[in-house]
């Protein structure tokens, strides 16, 4: 849970402060490589924190002025409901974050001495 919160906070802060989208992958990768105890934790932490970081932000913007553009983007992607763009945004982040977390853990495993 702490990992999720830390990753969530880091992604949100870096997303706001910089113009780069890939913090949702870099942060879970770093967490997986540096702090995750198991591959499952690495994957789940990346997945949930990225899902929350983009999902909460998208939901916030959806409710505060982005409903029209979400509707147009939904139409572009042939989705019937504007709010589905919130779900798509969160889902894409979850997949990217989860994969990055797992990859980070596997990367660290390379340097672990096998018992």
């Amino acid at each position, binding site marked *: 849970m702490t990992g999720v919160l830390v990753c969530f906070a880091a992604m949100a802060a870096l*997303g*706001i402060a910089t*113009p*780069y*989208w*890939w913090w949702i*992958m870099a942060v879970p*990768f770093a967490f997986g490589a540096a702090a995750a105890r198991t591959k499952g934790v690495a994957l789940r932490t990346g997945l949930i924190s990225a899902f929350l970081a*983009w999902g909460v*932000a*998208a939901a*916030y*913007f*959806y409710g*505060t*002025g*982005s409903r*029209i*553009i*979400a*509707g*147009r*983007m*939904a*139409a*572009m992607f*042939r989705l019937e409901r504007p709010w589905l763009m919130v779900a*798509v*945004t969160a889902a*894409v*982040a979850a*997949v*990217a974050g989860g*994969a*990055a977390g*797992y*990859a980070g*853990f*596997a*990367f660290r*495993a*390379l340097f672990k001495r*096998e018992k």
Partner: protein
Amino acid sequence: MKWVRALASRAIAAAIFWGLDVRHGTFPPAGRLLDPFTGFWRNDTRGDTPPGKLDLPGLAADVRVVWDSRRIPHIFAGNDADLARAQGFITARDRFWQMDFVSRYAAGRLSEILGPSMLESDRFFRRFGLTVAAERCWALMSAEAKTREIMEAYAAGVNAYVRTLGRSDYPVEYKILDCEPEPWTPVRSLLLLKLMSYDMTGFNTDAWMTAARTALGEAVLDELFPFDPPLVDPVIPPGTRWDFVRGAPRPASTAEGEGGGGHIPEVRVPAIAARGASAGDDVDRRAIGSNNWAVSGLRTRSGLPILANDPHLGLVLPSVWYEVQLAAPGLNVRGVSLPGAPLVVIGFNERIAWGFTNSFDDVLDWYAVKFRDASRSEYERPGGWATTEFRTEEFRVRGAKPVIERVAWTKDGPVVRDAGAPAFSQSDVPAGAALRWSGHDPSNELMTVYRLARGRNYDDYVAALASWTCPGQNIAYADAEGTIAIWHQGRFPLREKGQGRYLLDEAVPSDAWRERIPARENPYVRNPERGFISSANQNPTDGTYPYYLGWDFESFERGARINEILARATSVTPEDMVRMQTDTLNLRARAALPPLLESMRGRDFSDVEKRAIGELVTWNFENRAGLMAPSIFSEFWSEFNARTWNDEARNGLASMNWPKSEVTIELILKHPESSYFDDRKTAPREGLGDIAFAAFRAAVKKMTDRAGQPGEKWTWGRWRSTRIGHVAHIPGFGRENLVCDGGVGIVNAIETDTGPSWRLVVALGPAVAAWGILPGGPSGNPGSKYYDSGVDEWAAGKAVPLVFLRSADESNPSIASRTTLRSAR
């Protein structure tokens, strides 16, 4: 094993990263696009409420912007340069992506951001020479202090906005298409104007006419494509006296460049003429044109003139036009600007109002070029060989290797399509021919709109028109002193009748453009006795006008209907004029349908055909969205033309262009026995009734196949629904399935994807008042509620009062907010 796992997981993560970071074909880079902090989510409604203060470097003094309740900016500046800078800045805030995209389109550079799919379009515009045209104009305009000042200040204002953009602020289209904004320049403004010129003058059928002359003979073409068509009520009222006598044209030795010799002999057309014609022009579906008129005080309730204008263009979002009011000392103008270009194009000030319709004059010719050898370094001119100039065009293509082409230029213009090269889909370009186009001539149309903006009376209006060259326009005028007028304005080549109707020859002296028609001898009328002026792209004059302007003008219907209404109008109000802009009477149907129905009398109709006949018989000829008759007639007329004309293609002519509706109607009314109604491909001789019956049967079958039995789907508004697509064709960013009255040849000219791009009615007087509507809104942001805020009212045929302020401090209930643009020193 752990190596495998590590590599596999990193490969998957890398693939996901790559998948989300890069555009794949037309699929956007999803990671960047979906990012809530910098992606599409930030293209929200924040911009709908302008801030109270904004920095704009370079201003001499603060500029005040008043926003009305429709979020139209009213800009008040202390001098012309500040005004232009502020206009560039404010326009860019709303429309920069549109400006950037369309100017790249005109420059032939879209394949740089969209890839190989746009290469043909780019090649066409680059080879057509729009960039050269814009550069030539800038060379002229930059030598004139006022236009240089305005153009440079406008560009500076645009760039001031571009410099404020962070990635999250980018218009959403940049995020979808994965490209970057480019700095603005005066030449980019002029590219937009040249694109508009191309849209209005770039059409031609010279190659087809030449092939048709060989196949059918000139007499047939003169009959089917007459210089003085029937039923047309010209722009300048018949009988108007010309206050000049045409001087004798100079001999051909004074042609542009060099030359000498005879006078319009038989046109020589080499092999390029053998190329087939354009595939049967379906003129029935073209709704690019415009209406304007002005009614004098003799016919208005106020005793002062009223002017109306609705230019018909392709319907797109963001809107073609940007509404704005501009005020500086000596200038207070309101109307619409072209996003990306300074000042107001169509509009009014406190004293005068003006509006445009395209003149449809022939200002584009093709010249066969004979090169001396395969190097193409020299080509034949009268009296010898001239050196070819080559311009190298490099096309950078996203995701592909660059393409480099050398375009040959003669003294007339570019060889747009090399001999043996495939045809362009944009236009019927003859292979191996050089283009001569008025749009390539240096000109300063900006000076016209600058002077109009400052105009106070008729003399100012006439003086303003002097610099208007291309595209030729019918420029309607009305003022608070009670004057109305219309000038058919442009810089038109002085030619013999029919010159340029067929392909010309670079080596024939008499084919060359010589002088221009003196501007003061352009057709015009001021305060005509009938109490109104009007134009709807039809023939400008009757046969008494002593110069030749062209032959391919618009069909008679809109012009005739406008004049019909105005001729009996009394005590006219602005509301009457707004209603008139949405008049739906179909003159084509009123003229042609009764004799067509009569010709089919006694035929054996099926039940569904009888029902369709019933709809037509009871029709009041109005193209209303809820009626079935307009749909049935539209299809009937299309089938009737196809059956009457397509079989005329013979003797090697690949396809047949249809004559204009007035020619066909004249045949129906006066020559029902005409052999044109015989289907040449069948043995028995058919007559009008046979062709009409076959066409009607085919039309009903087409409708039944597509929409079932007569009902809701047959109604005009559903059968030809209207769409306003996004300018880059991004799905979901336009408006679909609009149910509208109107149609081709109707005053309310709404068609499938063309129609009135702006409606304006101005009542002149001590306190000028105006009404208008755009099929869109002020904002170019698809996430804004002002992106398409006018569409529903436009579709319903409404117009809204236009706020016109005398000063920035004026109190007005329609004012929503104010912004001060501060010079950031």
